[in-house]
């Protein structure tokens, strides 16, 4: 309480910036401003459109992860959920099937054949398929949640095992093959644009698709809807208060009558369902169900973006707006590293360093709040 009266020292000024909600937004803007003179392509409409399209699905996954980190947990199985729901969706709604590709898969003949998936041509089939994705994800989340909340197993271990088993199952279902031939209506969910911009000459009678840059897209609408909903859930509802209570001090939460088990289970379900929604966008963009979606370093992107935003790994501190800016920064980072023509290995090395820096920043922020409180 001394900060209000005393003249702010440089240290206090630094800590105030570090603790600001918009710190990562400032960081992102500064980063772009610093690199734009050297990489003019950064600010071209094509690149901005590209950055945005990469942001939306990641934002949805990271939103789910934000809830889990808020209770000092971690969900490593999100990537595997994306993969398995992608395959489930595609095998149900594909309009054609290719025996040469999928002939060896256990789903061939049972769920999908030459005439497409089980739900192809069924009215409302798309909605049923999406429902199936969400239900499958919710079940996986439920398993995670019950193992953590009821059996008291560490989230790290539980979700690591889930990741292993579920991603193996996804690969088994299609024998590691992509399932293509998805209907247009589904693909539109990942690509369809509502507002696009064309910067070319006006007298052209036919505008080639590739010079139209989409800005407001279905993924944008879906991701922002999820984020806004999550924001209200976390900040304005009784549920959100319980989440923070568990993340701040779980013993206190229990004694204070917070339904700890129910909330923890719900959080893992939310995390998995967010992954399923992102899976719709990823699969639609790829125009295929892919059992290796969300594999590799994807998980690091999710947790890295969330932590860079400012959500604490120690629990009790989380904001959806932070995650939004964290995702923005992370996508910008990936984008600029690509523009620099670095190899995939170099990109991963830089990303790793940035995530480590973010984790360090988390520790630093925790320490600053502790010290300024004295």
């Amino acid at each position: 309480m001394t900060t209000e009266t005393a003249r702010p020292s440089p240290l206090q000024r630094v800590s105030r910036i570090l603790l600001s909600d918009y710190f990562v937004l400032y960081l992102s803007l500064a980063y772009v401003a610093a690199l734009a003179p050297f990489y003019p392509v950064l600010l071209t409409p094509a690149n901005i459109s590209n950055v945005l399209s990469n942001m939306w699905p990641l934002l949805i996954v990271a939103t789910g992860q934000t809830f889990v980190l808020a209770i000092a947990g971690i969900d490593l199985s999100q990537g595997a959920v994306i993969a398995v729901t992608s395959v489930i969706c595609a095998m149900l709604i594909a309009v054609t099937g290719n025996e040469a590709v999928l002939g060896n898969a256990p789903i061939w003949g049972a769920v999908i054949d030459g005439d497409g998936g089980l739900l192809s041509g069924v009215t409302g089939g798309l909605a049923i398929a999406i429902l199936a994705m969400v239900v499958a994800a919710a079940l996986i989340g439920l398993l995670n949640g019950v193992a953590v909340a009821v059996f008291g197993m560490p989230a790290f271990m539980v979700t690591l095992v889930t990741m292993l088993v579920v991603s193996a199952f996804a690969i088994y279902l299609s024998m590691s093959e992509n399932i293509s031939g998805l209907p247009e209506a589904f693909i539109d969910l990942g690509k369809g644009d509502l507002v696009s911009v064309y910067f070319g000459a006006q007298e052209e009678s036919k505008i080639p698709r590739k010079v139209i840059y989409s800005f407001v897209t279905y993924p944008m609408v879906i991701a922002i809807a999820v984020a806004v909903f999550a924001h209200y859930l976390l900040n304005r509802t009784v549920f959100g208060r319980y989440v923070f209570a568990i993340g701040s001090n779980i013993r206190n939460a229990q004694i204070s009558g917070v339904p700890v088990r129910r909330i923890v289970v719900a959080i893992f379900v939310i995390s998995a369902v967010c992954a399923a929604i992102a899976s719709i966008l990823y699969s639609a963009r790829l125009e295929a169900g892919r059992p290796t979606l969300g594999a590799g370093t994807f998980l690091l992107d999710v947790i890295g973006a969330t932590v860079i935003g400012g959500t604490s790994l120690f629990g009790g501190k989380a904001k959806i707006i932070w995650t939004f800016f964290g995702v923005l920064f992370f996508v910008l980072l990936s984008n600029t590293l690509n523009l620099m023509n670095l190899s995939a290995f170099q990109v991963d090395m830089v990303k790793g360093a940035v995530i480590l820096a973010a984790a360090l920043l988390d520790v630093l922020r925790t320490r600053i709040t502790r010290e300024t409180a004295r």
Partner: protein
Amino acid sequence: MSDLLTFEGLSKAWFGVPAVSDLDYALRENSLLGVIGQNGAGKSTLMNMIGGIVQPSGGRMLWRGAPYAPQSAADASKVGIAFIHQELNLFTNLSVAENLYVDGFPRKFGIIDWAAINERTRSILQRLSLDDVEPSVKVGQLSPGERQLVEIARALHNEAQLIIFDEPTTSLTHRETERLFETIATLREEGRTIVYISHILGDVQSISDGIAVLRDGRLVDHGAAADFPVSRMIKSMIGRDLGGLFPPRSNQPDSDLILSARSIGQPGVLEKASIDVRKGEVLGLFGLMGAGRSELARVLFGLDPHATGDILLNGQPLTGGPRNRIAAGMAFVTENRREEGLMLDASIADNLALVSIDRFGRKPFALVDMEALSTRTEAMKAELSIKAGNIARQAAKTLSGGNQQKVVIGKWQMQSPKLFILDEPTRGVDVGAKYEIYTLVDRIAADGGGVLMISSELDELLGMADRIVVMNRGEVIGSVDRADFDREKLLAMAFREVTA
């Protein structure tokens, strides 16, 4: 006798706010100085300056007449100053001998000389009458009292001349406390100087030969212990006369039972413990450490299981966990405020709101009615006179111990519960706030609620309770009405098995 440690105009300010100002005092060699003061009076800052943890912003210290300006804890230890803290700084996974020698093992031909280590450790332990403790025993296996003596052994090993005790008795039993005082007397016979900081004023009065009172960072009063009755201590600490330590009880308990626990048993913890709390009653629950008081409280609140017996609240049997108990009208202030009672980093308002938050959820999405909630939390802040600025922004950890405890009580008060279980409600709370908490306890009972008050401080129960139930080793030994309160009788009941 010469002066061991002298303060000359010693001051320390944090961000311009003075914590210790202009302190002048000379600590005589081989004296025992009791230091008292409310939380935030500057005791910790002063000790941290002596210990080299923080550096003064003005004035200086002299050690045996020579300037003393420690830059680190090692500097303090080098001149011969040792601290025995409330939270002991021992490695529980190491042996007694290893704890003594942890900053440097003597070697013989490059190999640790265990024979010498064990011999010296044993001789130090003997001086503390800890003959029955082997140097090779792991500290984790010792009782809190024995651990404290090991900490003192470490000070002796380092040849400390000045030993500073900071609230050393909070986790000790009565017997262990007695033993500690005997040890302190021995240390003085050996020519050592002691500074003893405590909230337990009776102890300070009886063992010290000088007493110093800090208030708002200033030395407001000091003198010989003989001229320093507890009433003068309190007066100096708070700057006004409280007219006694306890408010008068303002109501008589009803005959209706609120809580009735019958033959609660849990192997190894509780043996057929029965307890009744009446409407408007403050029931004190007394016993030594490990008597099963807190364990009974946890069972009553549904946190721990019980194998036999029934718990009735207003005649209705209780089942399920804390959620059900809360719904039935119970509240539980645990003995570990920081670990179990608060979200330290969260705001005061969030802490106050936690228990009753679902009452502020509006359909259909349980959106929190922020306006109604903030009106209610502000009202609770005023009702409990919680000393804070903006409760929506200020974190709970910034509050003093007493105000933190008021927040914990306040979060339950928001529900207007029928039965309050208070486990050590005034632990680590300064005198002024203690009085406020006692007033609150009286008010809860006067409003028709029941209070089960657990305490290790018998005086507190004698002052506040309408009736005291004594426990020993998981059993209820008996119950004594206010009219028959007698300190010796209650202590004898608590010690039953030890004295028998």
